[in-house]
């Protein structure tokens, strides 16, 4: 896939921070979900967020692309102040693509149409160019021949790969993956992971909430372990999996590995 011109100065000496979060707090009613999350993600980095269910991982991801407004703290994505009330959400979402656990493909549109819709209607790009790129993206996620299939006719893993292609069609600067393999049959998880691995290898900045520990260990530059709305521990996969410092991290890893 060709590089987006906006991402051209990628080879600069000190990679700048693409996503920068400080002390992000969020409560739903009386339930506090995030209690001060801070995170720096540089261009081209792959960051995995792990932790027990209900620790606020998915909410945090939704805060990054303003699906969920935050109560306090700051989030800056590619120079846009997400925490401000006047944030241009549509500009933000062109920078940050999101893939969901439940795929959320549009069931009344074919795989190809799902990929084409946003570039055509949001970016107002000409149909011919969009279709060409969409077909290339579907080939990239290894779904040639499925262009005309409706989501209901595809397996979970195939739908999730269409969802990834759909997000990529907007040429995002960062991809947010929200437990994208959690709802899949075990045999289709691999195909989705292959796609994400290729994206990461191409230098796409990725933030993943995941329960796939092996995958996180292999792919991530940084791993954040969250519990009860806080980041308990962060570090390289070697540090975090090899010698976890916090007892909560240790307990979690023992349970899950």
């Amino acid at each position: 896939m060709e590089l987006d011109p906006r991402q051209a100065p990628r080879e600069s000496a000190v990679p700048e921070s693409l996503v920068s979060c400080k002390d992000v707090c969020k409560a739903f009613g009386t339930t506090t979900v995030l209690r001060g999350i801070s995170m720096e993600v540089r261009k081209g980095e792959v960051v995995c967020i792990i932790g027990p269910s209900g620790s606020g991982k998915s909410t945090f991801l939704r805060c990054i692309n303003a699906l969920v407004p935050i109560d306090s703290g700051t989030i800056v994505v590619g120079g846009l102040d997400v925490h401000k009330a006047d944030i241009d959400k549509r500009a933000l979402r062109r920078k940050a693509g999101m893939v969901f656990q439940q795929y959320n493909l549009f069931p009344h549109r074919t795989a190809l149409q799902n990929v084409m819709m946003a570039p055509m209607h949001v970016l107002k790009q000409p149909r011919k160019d969009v279709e060409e790129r969409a077909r290339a993206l579907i080939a990239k996620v290894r779904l040639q021949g499925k262009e005309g299939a409706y989501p209901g006719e595809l397996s979970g893993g195939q739908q999730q790969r269409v969802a990834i292609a759909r997000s990529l069609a907007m040429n995002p600067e960062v991809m947010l993956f929200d437990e994208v393999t959690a709802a899949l049959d075990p045999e289709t998880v691999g195909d989705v992971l292959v796609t994400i691995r290729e994206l990461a290898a191409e230098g796409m900045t990725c933030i993943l909430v995941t329960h796939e520990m092996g995958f996180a260990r292999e792919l991530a530059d940084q791993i954040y372990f969250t519990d009860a709305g806080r980041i308990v521990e962060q570090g390289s996969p070697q540090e975090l999996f090899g010698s976890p410092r916090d007892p909560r991290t240790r307990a979690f890893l023992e349970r899950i590995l």
Partner: protein
Amino acid sequence: MSAGKETILAVLVNWTPYILKGFAINVFISIVSMALATVLGVVVGVGQISTNRAVRSVCWAFTNFFRNAPWLVLLFYCMLLLPFQFRVGGVAVAIPDWAKATLGIAIAAAANMSDLVRGAIQSIPTGQWESAESLAFTRRQTLFLVILPQCIKRLLPPWMNLYALVMVSTPLCAIVGVNEIMTVAADILAANTRHDLLIPVYFYILLLFFFYCYPIARMTQRLERRFAVIG
């Protein structure tokens, strides 16, 4: 009683063209009012989930007020409140009674349609809104490109159901003076002073409605079953 008394069947057969003409008026009123109700109902239904509070309140009030109003009362309101003519430029244009009656039925049906639309929109999983939002669609684009197209399939069976309801309520128009099938029936009974015609004539009309509405009901059931499987 006269000697050359026709059989009941012969009377019905003789009057059939006239009866069918009356029935055609019922069909016409039902189709026009359903068309109006559909357009109005979609607009008001979408208005019920508007982000603008004033729009939402007005649409909610319209829906709930007219959904709980007896149709006959609405018909009387339309007959009595609407002027019998209005002026366009210097020209007086008469509003025929059937148009007023059609509007009355349309308002009642639109209120029902509005709630069907609201329900259909709310039955679409929130994930659809989220994924459209995260692709930078505007709310309007999300509604028209993603949400409403998915509602059509869900709306089709209840919409057909509502149409059948509209159709069977069209004889109410006779009460407010529109010439339709019930007026025809009264004409037949007035022209033939025979008591034994009363039951057959009205039974004939019931049959007409049955053969018109039953296929709609069957088709609705079939669609409901099919969509229940596909989801």
